[in-house]
């Protein structure tokens, strides 16, 4: 059925960004609008999620053009879950940024770009058209360009150059793949393509296109040979910005991979093996990268790369249980990685330092805060019963069942490396005695802040930690959700019926 509720998450963010542009120079108004708007976005996302999860897939034909020709927006359980997670993270980051971002940067359009970025993410999650997916990716990249250069420090520009180059390359490959696909199948609607792709005689070319998509999305989500740009650029922007990058930007690549590979290209044995190998290598190399870092934020960035491997491995096995594990990991990872980078920002505000060797004594000074930060850290490792544990169990048992012992080894290796790195981080930053550091005049330290500013920094971390705890302790509910999503990914007929069936029962003007 046609339902305009679907487009609301996109339109709300767009409207917010425009309203914020009108308040360009009034920082206080911007903060209030951004937070209030983000709360409304969460409410809408919850409403949309409940409607889709409890009833059925919703579709909307933009401009009332019928399905295979016009652009379809589809809200199934997977996309609404992603929208819900994105709006929760966005709310946390919006609150955090009101204090952590410098006023000068807010004047140069921090908040409008932020909402444009979230609009792009929501659009990418909702679209059912592969070219439209590309357009949303461009919206995301352009807003992230603003973020990554905002402030214009030398190290930022260096990171930005790497980020630009690789992301442009990825977009180009993605666009080429779409062009070739359109030339072969004559359609861009993913549900329509799903039927047409099987009738193409030259399946070899289809394989090549699938690999092109894998490379394009692979660069964006930082999988094995293509991840070098990420640790080099994610540590340069402000903590609030890199947390939204870490939580959502690489994950939208994973989302697109899951979507395209379940709906359009069904992976054959060669593809599965390839993706499993890439997943394992991502785990391995990301873990090794994190091991040698002493810069806190660079270490976290390598952790992103490492943990992408779990999801890629899950996609590679391509059974319902493995996909369910990958989706569960995705749900856990979005919240935890956003929280981790926010916590990193908080630690930076306390110490004024990103080098782990020079930090310390945090547990002595702030015991309650340390325990709070422990939640995302230990969720990341997957200490039972926290949230990282459940999807890993699922992925491990599934790699046993499918006989992917190599991937099993990599998963265990990745988990151990994470354990080691985080324990080292904990002992360096929280337990070690710190020598007194010279105060830097340009940093606003945590203990110089007013009470309300401290609250604004800590509340989002508490908020995301509670969600993390819920994912861990209420794992049964999340498993039910991820199994539901995996079932929809394996059996795409409901999705296809919802999109193409809607074409015949459309509203007539």
């Amino acid at each position, binding site marked *: 059925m046609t339902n305009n509720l679907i487009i609301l998450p996109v339109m709300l963010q767009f409207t917010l960004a425009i309203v914020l*542009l009108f308040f360009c120079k009034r920082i206080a108004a911007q903060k209030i609008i951004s937070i209030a708007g983000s709360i409304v976005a969460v409410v809408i996302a919850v409403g949309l999620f409940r409607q889709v999860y409890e009833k059925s897939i919703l579709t909307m034909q*933009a*401009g*009332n053009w019928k399905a295979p020709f016009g652009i379809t927006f589809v809200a199934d359980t997977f996309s609404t879950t992603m929208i819900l997670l994105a709006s929760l993270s966005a709310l946390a980051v919006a609150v955090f940024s009101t204090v952590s971002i410098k006023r000068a940067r807010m004047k140069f359009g921090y908040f409008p770009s932020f909402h444009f970025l979230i609009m792009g993410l929501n659009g990418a999650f909702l679209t059912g058209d592969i070219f439209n997916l590309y357009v949303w990716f461009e919206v995301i990249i352009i807003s992230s360009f603003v973020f990554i250069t905002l402030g214009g420090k030398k190290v930022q520009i260096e990171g930005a150059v790497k980020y630009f180059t690789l992301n442009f390359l990825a977009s180009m490959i993605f666009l080429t793949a779409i062009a070739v696909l359109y030339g072969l199948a004559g359609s861009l609607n993913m549900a329509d393509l799903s039927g047409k792709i099987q009738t193409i005689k030259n399946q070899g070319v289809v394989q090549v296109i699938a690999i092109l998509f894998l490379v394009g999305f692979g660069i964006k989500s930082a999988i094995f040979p293509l991840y070098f740009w990420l640790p080099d650029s994610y540590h340069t922007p402000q903590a609030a910005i890199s947390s939204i990058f870490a939580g959502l930007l690489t994950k939208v690549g994973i989302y697109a991979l899951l979507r395209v590979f379940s709906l359009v290209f069904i992976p054959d044995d060669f593809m599965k093996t390839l993706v499993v190998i890439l997943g394992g290598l991502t785990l391995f190399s990301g873990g090794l990268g994190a091991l040698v870092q002493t810069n806190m934020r660079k270490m976290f960035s390598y952790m992103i790369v490492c943990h992408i491997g779990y999801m890629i491995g899950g996609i590679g096995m391509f059974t319902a249980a493995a996909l369910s594990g990958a989706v569960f990991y995705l749900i856990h990872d979005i919240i935890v990685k956003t929280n981790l980078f926010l916590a990193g920002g908080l630690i930076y505000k306390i110490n004024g330092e990103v080098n782990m060797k020079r930090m310390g004594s945090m547990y002595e000074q702030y015991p309650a805060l340390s325990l709070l930060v422990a939640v995302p850290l230990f969720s990341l490792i997957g200490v039972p019963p926290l949230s990282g544990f459940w999807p890993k169990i699922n992925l491990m048992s599934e790699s046993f069942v499918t006989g992917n012992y190599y991937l099993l080894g990599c998963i265990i290796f990745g988990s151990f490396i994470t354990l080691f790195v985080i324990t080292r981080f904990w002992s360096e930053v929280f337990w070690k005695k710190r020598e007194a550091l010279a105060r830097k005049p340009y940093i606003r330290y945590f203990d110089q802040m007013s009470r309300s500013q401290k609250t604004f920094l800590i509340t989002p971390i508490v908020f995301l930690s509670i969600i993390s705890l819920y994912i861990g302790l209420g794992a049964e509910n999340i498993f039910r959700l991820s199994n539901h999503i995996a079932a929809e990914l394996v059996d795409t007929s409901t999705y296809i019926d919802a999109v193409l069936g809607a074409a015949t029962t459309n509203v007539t003007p």
Partner: protein
Amino acid sequence: MKLLILRTTANFLLPLLLLFSLFLLLRGHYLPGGGFVGGIIAAIAFVLHAFAFGLRSTRKLLRVHPISFMPVGLGLAVFSALLPLLKGLPVMTGLWLDEPFPVVGLVGSALLFDVGVYLVVLGVALTIIFTISESV
């Protein structure tokens, strides 16, 4: 630049170019033209004026900072996309008036969107060019 010929022609060209940009904007739906080209031509009109009379007088002519065209244009575009919601149609459905206007022709929500694009392009182009020529 203090060239007499340039100044004299710029005085005449500013309204002509603006008129031409509106012409392109209005014919854009079925024929070559549209909001983007129209906006660029309008920006050229102001840039020419700035070359001839200096940036300050062009700013005075515009009265508002060109960057404020952007949110207005984007707002118009969103408004035109959300307009069909009132009739219970999907977002971005084209709505058309029944009777054509004189001179302009048949008006629909697509024109509103194009006007939005026109303003955004004008705002962006002028902001970029003004900023660069100020820093030179």
